């Protein structure tokens, strides 16, 4: 069974329909990339998966999203528990203006999942997971904003992982980073894939081709095509997809 199963999802901002009839199966321990031009709805779609659109006034959603078979769009669902299960990494590195340690420990502390004396081990494990431990082990008490942008983004991933989520949503996680830092994040994604279900939204088609197992192409609020990444990039079934990935449109 798929980890996340999206069924006939529609999304509206007021009277404007942003997503139309999206159905998508996302497997555990795989990377799903979502590509498409700006404003095609891929980020909105991503934010449906952890209900981050909830706070937007006038937003309305129809359809079903099943996480391990449970409909996360149910109005009775505790969204804070959902978000602890589905972590998110944002476009711009956005560590809190606190120490490196406090950043990683933030989630476990607010969710009260660990005793204070267990936190150092958890922080270390999370930082090791993102390959940051050796770089920051002597700076745990320093302000996280002293780190380089690439390190900050990996710190943000560690912060999300410390909550011990099952899935990780990444919203253009490399768009603010230089090529070297981008490669490090992509490398990291490949190792994280062994434990998590990952959905990444990206503007960068090479990135989608490099890291993902499957790719979905969004166009004007619809998912035009979804396929194994290699197939989608070499034998797109749809002209829109072909035009987009060859650079003739979008």
């Amino acid at each position, binding site marked *: 069974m798929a980890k996340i199963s999206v069924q006939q999802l529609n999304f509206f901002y007021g009277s404007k329909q942003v997503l139309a009839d999206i159905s998508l199966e996302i497997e555990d321990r795989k990377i799903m990339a979502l590509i498409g031009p700006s404003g095609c709805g891929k980020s909105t779609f991503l934010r449906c998966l952890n209900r981050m659109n909830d706070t937007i006034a006038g937003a309305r959603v129809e359809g079903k999203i099943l996480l391990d078979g449970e409909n996360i769009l149910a109005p009775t669902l505790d969204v804070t528990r959902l*978000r602890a299960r589905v*972590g998110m990494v*944002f476009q711009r590195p956005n560590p809190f*203006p606190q120490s490196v340690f406090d950043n990683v420990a933030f*989630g476990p502390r*607010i969710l009260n999942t660990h005793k204070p004396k267990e936190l150092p081990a958890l922080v270390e494990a999370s930082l090791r997971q993102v390959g940051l431990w050796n770089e920051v082990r002597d700076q745990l008490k320093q302000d996280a904003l002293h780190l380089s942008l690439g390190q900050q983004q990996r710190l943000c991933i560690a*912060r999300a992982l410390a909550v011990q989520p099952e899935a990780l949503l990444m919203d253009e996680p490399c768009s603010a980073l230089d090529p070297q830092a981008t490669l490090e994040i992509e490398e990291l994604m490949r190792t994280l894939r062994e434990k998590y279900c990952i959905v990444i939204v990206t503007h960068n088609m090479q990135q989608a081709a490099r890291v993902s197992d499957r790719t979905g192409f969004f166009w004007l609020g619809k998912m035009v095509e979804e396929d194994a990444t290699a197939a989608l990039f070499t034998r797109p079934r749809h002209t829109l997809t072909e035009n987009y990935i060859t650079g003739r449109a979008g």
Partner: protein
Amino acid sequence: MNRYAQQRLGFIALGAVTLVVVIPILLVIGNIIAQGLGAISWEFLFGMPRAGMRAGGILPAIVGTILLTLGVALFAIPFGVGGAIYLSEYARDTTFTRAIRLAIINLAGIPSIVYGLFGLGLFVLFFGLGVSILAGSLTLAIMTLPVIISASEEALRAVPTEFRTVNASLGGTRWQGIRKIILPQALPGIITGVILGLLRAAGETAPILFTVAAFYLPRLPQSVFDQTMALPYHLYVISTQVPGMPLQIQYGTALVLMTLTLSLNLTATLLRRHFRKRRQW
């Protein structure tokens, strides 16, 4: 005239204007220090007034002003900061909340004597608190609230939205985000607003006129239901109501009041600098 000469002329003009603004402030401060410093003595600061306030000290007025300011802090900070958190973090943009904001802005523009009469009517008479420190503090607190709410709300809104988003994405409740991230980040601005509000309260005469201030009461207040002397009102009294008042005592009282408010101001500046060093966004 070429553009470099224009620029130089502009700088000189702007500098001169700034100087004109600063000079009166320095003159006021300098004048008060020069004329009032001679009055400052142990007895003046820690003694009771004697001989119809023409001799002795001003301790009851100093203590009264400090107590009133503390009272204002006690009432105005929780309500002011609490209201600001509600407006900035929870309230949706509806006609109702817009009306509240409009009311707060207008409250800041009400003349202080009107607050004084309001305090007399509500706290002194209706609630039966009498002319007391409690009634005076409450009146001053209500006058101070708009300053504290506006400054705190602004400080809270200045904290980047993404911190709220990240908190939510990690499974935090809105309140957890406020307590752990938003409030600490907004604290410098809130403290500044609070202290500016307290400063205004400490220096006001009109609101305490009918609610707490005693004309001549040469003893320290025994409870919050006591009247008390207070520096601004005392200064008004000895400047206009007491014939044959030595000028030095008037200036000495002004110097004490000014030192009190300026030191509060300095505290605000130092606290703000201390917190701001840690902020990077």
